[in-house]
């Protein structure tokens, strides 16, 4: 029997390159695939061609050279159309619905673990590996982390696979991977998840990979200038209609340029008339799509003790039987906060925080943890009547 085959999603960056090198060292039969994703044409804010993309031409050259160095087959596959259709367009629609969507969820679910996983399976791979900082714990092995030797093909097991945080708390990417289920996790590998970033950079140098000192990519990969508002103005001008900025009591205090350009918790860029009622700074409390209004208020009004998701995904593929004492993040970089996960009938869920949280934003993900393990998550929905709670300023 041959070696276990693994497809690595390569971006030309340091993390996925080290992931590929680790797998080769561990004796897997490794294939590198780079997806060419859709990105806006044009130059960045400094007038340079947009290179803030994992799939810029230079990155393809880098990834191909790394694959050559590692002695593995490499394919770069055009996925622009499918990425635009499954990720960029739903993301724009999210703004049109007065939410602040996170495109990485659809990308991981539908592009990496859909489009790319399909190709991995077609090539006879048992696993799909990425450079994410997260870990998978399987029923067979305590940890399929980087220290492991080659294991056999994934088999069905009554016990479940767990998605765990990456070891590097600053780099942990489990938040954007909460969309994965048992079938995905059974075939997922995150070779970098057992390391901190500095260790990964050291490994890159040890492997002699040319990307060791490459700077981190920033922002969303398909934005040219790192500014989503400019992107929306250029690519979806029709989704924004100017309207009023109002207080939570309904007083009109200014004009906004269109709901998509505002997000909950935003303070900068609010054009508010001088009023006598408040000397405090104004924050976006919520976006009222029905009235096309930005609702603004002082910091003390910006907080939610509970958020709700419409369709809760559980990494175990099944909802817990009862409420779970857990912690949750409401944004990628938000601090985890303790509370109760309360599954609702119909597939939704509510999370009741012990302390009110700033900036709970419809469209962003609620991701729920039990210790290091991701229980699941979902997209935060707007409450019919937003209940705000005081937050300690």
């Amino acid at each position: 029997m041959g070696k276990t085959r693994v497809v690595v999603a390569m971006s030309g960056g340091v993390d996925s390159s080290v992931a590929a090198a680790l797998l080769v060292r561990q004796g897997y039969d490794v294939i590198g695939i780079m997806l060419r994703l859709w990105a806006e044409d044009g130059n960045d804010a400094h007038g340079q061609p947009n290179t803030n993309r994992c799939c810029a031409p230079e990155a393809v050259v880098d990834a191909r050279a790394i694959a050559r160095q590692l002695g593995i087959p490499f394919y770069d596959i055009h996925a622009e159309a499918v990425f635009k259709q499954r990720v960029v367009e739903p993301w724009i629609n999210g703004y049109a619905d007065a939410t602040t969507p996170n495109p990485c969820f659809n990308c991981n679910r539908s592009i990496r673990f859909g489009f790319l996983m399909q190709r991995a399976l077609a090539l006879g791979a048992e696993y799909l590996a990425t450079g994410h900082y997260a870990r998978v714990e399987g029923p067979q092995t305590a940890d399929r982390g980087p220290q492991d030797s080659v294991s056999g093909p994934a088999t069905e097991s009554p016990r479940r696979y767990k998605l765990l945080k990456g070891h590097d708390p600053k780099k942990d990417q489990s938040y954007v991977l909460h969309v994965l289920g048992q079938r995905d996790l059974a075939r997922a590998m995150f070779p970098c998840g057992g390391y901190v970033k500095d260790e990964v950079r050291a490994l890159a140098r040890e492997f002699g990979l040319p990307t060791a000192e490459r700077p981190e990519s920033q922002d969303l990969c398909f934005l040219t200038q790192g500014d989503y508002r400019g992107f929306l103005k250029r690519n979806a001008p029709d989704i924004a209609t100017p309207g009023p900025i109002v207080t939570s009591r309904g007083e009109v205090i200014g004009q906004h340029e269109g709901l998509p350009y505002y997000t909950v918790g935003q303070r900068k860029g609010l054009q508010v008339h001088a009023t006598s009622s408040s000397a405090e700074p104004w924050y976006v409390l919520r976006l009222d799509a029905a009235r096309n209004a930005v609702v603004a208020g002082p910091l003390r009004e910006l907080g939610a003790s509970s958020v709700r998701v419409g369709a809760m995904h559980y990494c175990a593929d099944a909802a817990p039987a009862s409420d779970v004492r857990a912690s949750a993040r409401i944004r990628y970089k938000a601090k985890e906060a303790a509370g109760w996960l309360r599954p609702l009938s119909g597939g939704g869920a509510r999370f009741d925080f012990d302390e009110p949280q700033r900036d709970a934003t419809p469209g962003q993900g609620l991701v729920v943890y039990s210790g290091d393990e991701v229980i699941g998550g979902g997209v935060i929905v707007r409450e019919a009547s937003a209940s705000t709670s005081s937050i300690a300023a």
Partner: protein
Amino acid sequence: MPIYLDHSATTPIAPEAREAMLPYLTDLYGNASSLHSFGRDAAAALDEAHYTVGCAIGARASEIVFTGCGTESDNLALRGVMLALRQTGSPRQTILSAATEHHAIEATAHQLQQLFGFESALLPVDAHGWVDPADLRRILDARPNEIGLVSVMMANNEVGTLQSIQEIGALCRARGVFFHTDAVQCPAYLPIDVNALNIDLMSLSSHKFYGPKGVGVLYLRDGVPYISTATGGGHERDRRAGTVNVAGAVATAVALKLVTKRRETEAPRLSALRDRLIAGVLARVPDAMLTGHPTRRLPHHTSFAFKGVDGEVLLMALDIEGIAVSTGSACTSGSPEPSPVLLAMGIPTEWALGGLRITLGHGTTAAEIDTLLDILPACVARVRASVDFELRATA
């Protein structure tokens, strides 16, 4: 060692051709345009290459132009004739080409239309990708004095179907229309006589017939109106400016002579292997179809469509198993985009995603074909199973 079954993409250079070019890469490095002894050595070799290539296709040495590749030959032919017609004040300002032409023709005709004010029109093809000369006759007679140039490839690169070149050429000539054919897929396997086939311009590519990459040939019949769109010096009798690749031209001539000789044995040998491959695939792979004509096709060429299968994915799956083939068409952009050639032939979209081209060559053995036939059914099944996986994942 991987098995190479992509000879329509390129062929390995023949040892004889490689040996022939080496002196012109080492000691005999003169520029063929130079007047001194170094230049004369190069010019003599180049003259002989013109003569040899001309003889192989029934043309005069003076009608042979060496270019950089088949695509460049196509570009020079289309632009050169259309601009010359305009310069002489001819009313014939339309290019007519088949709906299944290579990008080199399609994109050039498109640019001539978009940027240069010419007209461009398409000839339909039948379910085998064949152009019915009756359609050409109908269009030419319906639009007298409009069509300046007809371009129909001698054999389609994607589906291998042979066109009725002699009839097409005759119809054009009788109506004062110039006729170009892209024949890059053909010289290694088919006899070509530009006079018997009524061809005015023809494109060839050296690396498709066991010559080196980086050399193309444009046959340009004496008397055909032509303006060089590669401007500069007076190289190649003012028809393609730029220092000529003498080593490449010499090797091209040797390769063409070689394949002309081998054709008599290779064409029937490859046809038999081809038919064995076609029968094997259709027997062993469910929901498979042959694309292109079953018999009126290039002797070394097979092409298939597999229902519900993306040809690019199947190509990669075969590559991992050590077999190099092609989809036959330019790459897709991730969304299942069917092949325009297959769509033009009326093949339904769910089949047109699955184009796979398997092309044989001088080195191909029956054992290699049998290896492919052993591996292909499992690869197709695996790709189909993975598609089901993705459909469930994204439902």
